[in-house]
């Protein structure tokens, strides 16, 4: 009987979560985000990249975190395409990253009249992690060799004059994992190349020490960060549209924690639940 009630109470909570989130996906509510300092800093860093340098959009993410990293990538690529900043998609942590970035850039390029090869390029996926990045920072064409379409990258106009990390104006590291450290150690630490960090919500608190030390120039925190960036671009994209659903989900989680604790303390008062304090 108790097992049955546990079984159904979990399913009811899950149904509540789906309803609470689903309602605000279907019902359109306009959300306004106040932009945080880290997101604004990243936006300004992209704006400041000189015309003779390239931005590296490092798509070190996989389809599992598309809900956050995908929207961040879209916002950042949109900014680059809108402002005519040259960029290169690159990835070395997850094989699917560069292809997912490619799909986003291909979808957006027509709107801003940009062309592959002239305004942007995709260096594809490379293995080797730290060792490869260390070599890449020293010699980009030699390490990358071909783009995702198997043409030599030096044959593209956008790659003119790009030899090493010194010719990179900004690295936009978009990732759900701890790959930022590699760029900080072997690119920023040796060549001083600026790095921007777009991470999932889980990794966001760990990015702040780097931001404070100046090792990264800006930070986007998950879906909220993508929404803030869309706010800065004055573009009402998917991230902004999903923020009401995000609000609803957060409210439900807070309510569940509060209700769960209320039930627990009442049961403890009645002597039905074990009460113990952690030693301090």
């Amino acid at each position, binding site marked *: 009987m108790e097992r049955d009630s546990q079984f159904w109470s979990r399913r009811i909570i899950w149904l509540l979560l789906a309803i609470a989130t689903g309602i605000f996906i279907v019902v359109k509510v306009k959300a306004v985000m106040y932009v945080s300092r880290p997101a604004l800093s990243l936006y300004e860093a992209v704006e400041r990249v000189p015309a003779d340098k390239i931005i590296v959009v490092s798509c070190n993410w996989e389809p599992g975190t598309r809900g*956050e990293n995908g929207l961040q990538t879209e916002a950042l690529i949109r900014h680059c395409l809108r402002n005519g900043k040259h960029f290169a998609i690159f990835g070395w942590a997850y094989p699917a990253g560069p292809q997912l970035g490619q799909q986003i850039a291909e979808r957006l390029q027509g709107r801003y009249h940009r062309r592959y090869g002239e305004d942007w390029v995709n260096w594809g996926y490379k293995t080797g992690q730290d060792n490869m990045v260390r070599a890449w920072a020293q010699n980009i064409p030699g390490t990358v060799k071909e783009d995702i379409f198997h043409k030599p990258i030096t044959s593209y106009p956008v790659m003119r004059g790009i030899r090493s990390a010194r010719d990179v104006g900004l690295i936009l590291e978009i990732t759900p994992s701890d790959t930022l450290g590699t760029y900080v150690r072997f690119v920023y630490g040796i060549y001083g190349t600026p790095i921007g960090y777009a991470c999932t*919500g889980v990794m966001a608190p760990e990015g702040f020490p780097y931001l404070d030390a100046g090792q990264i120039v800006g930070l986007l925190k998950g879906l909220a960060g993508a929404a803030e960036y869309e706010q800065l671009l004055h573009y009402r994209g998917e991230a902004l549209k*999903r923020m009401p659903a995000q609000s609803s989900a957060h409210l439900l989680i807070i309510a569940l924690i509060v209700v769960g604790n209320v039930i627990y303390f009442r049961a403890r008062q009645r002597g039905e639940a074990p009460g113990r304090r952690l030693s301090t």
Partner: protein
Amino acid sequence: MNRTPAGLTALIALAAFAVVAYLGIRYRIFAANLGIWLAAICTLAIYSILYRENVVFRFFEHIFIGLATGYGFYTIITQVLQPKWWVPVAKEGKWYWVFALLFSTMFYTVYSKRFSWMNRLAAGSFMGLSAGLGIVGFTTVLGPQMAASFKPLWTSASPYIVVNNILFFITLITVMSYFFFSFEQRHPVVKGSARLGRWLLMVALGAIFGNTVMGRMSLLIDRLQFLLLQWLQVFGRH
């Protein structure tokens, strides 16, 4: 009571699904697009775990592992090995790159107890490279972090900055003192500092928890958005 055979149950379920799908597409409730339907079936199959462990979830889970392995397989061949190994060897005559293939075969001796020393040698070399990079990385990461930790505790700028810097300093020192495990913390100052550090660390853990919730919910919203707006086409095509 005789139970309905599993095969017949599956057939009835499949037929019911086909009828619902046909009617849904016919009356424009569902999208009429093979790709969206495939994606919806995959999504619902995985979400079936929420009801309970079942064969459909296991089946699609194995399909996912197969697809992921296959994707990595062909990506490595086309984007790494072909431009960086095959082209230099076969087209540029750089025969010495064959040593890379011979070296990598040493990793495959992990399955043989007799030749496992080769795996140790290859893995040891890679671990040495990583260790070297780790020693280099220590300097490049720690230096700026330490320099940034020396914040002015008094400045003529806004009092907000002064208060923040003092709080930062207190938090940093007390949390670091909390992690001193190499000696017993007996002195009241050390004990008090460690206790305060623990409290302040709770703020960091709370922030991590809050952001984790944010991260996970975003992924759920992505899938629900697909199901509701692209597959079910609630309130028209999206």
